[in-house]
């Protein structure tokens, strides 16, 4: 069954051994086809995915705006982080779990979609951006924590994060319409 549906999706067949064996199996599992073919499950998962984005990006963007000195400037940077992160992490968890399920349902189509790969690349960049800030910012954070104006490095992180998440949302939409 897996082989049949993979052949239907033709061209990329010879591209990658791993993808060739794993993706059709994913695609044809009960969960994969269940999500794809159900009237209710797909909208609920996608709705939860969007809720996850609203919670995570909705919170994270306010931390980014604080880094840029555009909002919540009377609060220390570290405090804004503490306050928005619990909700943001709940959002990220929802987003990743539902995102994996959506990928599971559309694994073969996604694998062949350029929008999907751009989205994955942007997600990795967003992760690298956040982690590199996390790794370097704490050294001298005490110096500028309370100041409305943060160092260039911190402002860059905020700007890059806002741009990347906007781009991730755009590719998420273009991907859905290109399927």
């Amino acid at each position, binding site marked *: 069954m897996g082989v049949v549906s993979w052949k239907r999706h033709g061209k990329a067949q010879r591209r990658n051994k791993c993808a060739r064996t794993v993706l059709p199996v994913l695609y044809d599992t009960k969960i994969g086809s269940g999500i794809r073919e159900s009237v209710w499950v*797909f*909208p609920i998962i*996608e*709705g939860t995915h*969007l*809720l996850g*984005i*609203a*919670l995570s*990006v*909705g*919170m994270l*963007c*306010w931390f980014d705006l604080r880094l840029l000195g555009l*909002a*919540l400037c*009377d*609060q220390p940077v570290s405090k804004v982080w503490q*306050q*928005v992160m619990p*909700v943001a992490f709940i959002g990220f968890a929802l987003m990743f779990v539902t995102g994996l399920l959506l990928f599971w349902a559309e694994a073969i189509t996604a694998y062949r979609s350029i929008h999907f790969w751009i989205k994955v690349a942007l997600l990795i960049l967003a992760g690298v951006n956040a982690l590199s800030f996390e790794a370097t910012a704490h050294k001298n954070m005490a110096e500028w924590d309370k100041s409305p104006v943060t160092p260039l490095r911190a402002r860059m992180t905020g700007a890059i994060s806002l741009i990347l998440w*906007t781009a991730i*949302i*755009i590719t*998420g*939409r*273009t991907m*859905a*319409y290109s399927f």
Partner: protein
Amino acid sequence: MHYLLPIFKFFDKSWLATFIADSRWLFPAIEAVHIVALCLMFGAILILNLRLLGIAFNDKPVARLARELAPWVFCCLLIILASGLMLFSSEAMKAYTSVPFQVKMVFLFAAIIFHYTIYKHVTKTDDSKTNHSWAKLAAIVSIVLWLGVGIGGRGIGFL
């Protein structure tokens, strides 16, 4: 709903509707703007609601937080309404028969009216009594109303 039909037909026949419907990428592009703006606005309102519930930014006075976030919320709302109107125009007749669209509009008008009347009043005056139960109720009503808008909105694409 019959008396609203001319409005739907007006948008359906507008140049904007055909312009968006004719393009392959315009709809998802406008939708992305819609979602980015709603993330920002939802985040701002959620921060204020968490403050009213006593969960976040507890040492910042409610009224000051509300005053700082208000212009952001207002600008985002304008962007959301403008982009939403464009999306609506391109599929006005589909929206006319869509139950989720009707649900979304009811929640949207309720949420906007609530936000700029009762909610505005609560966040303006709640400074001294920070954990007032009315403030918490207002926060919960606000979250429920805006979630209703989102759920209705997602439903339009599927039902």
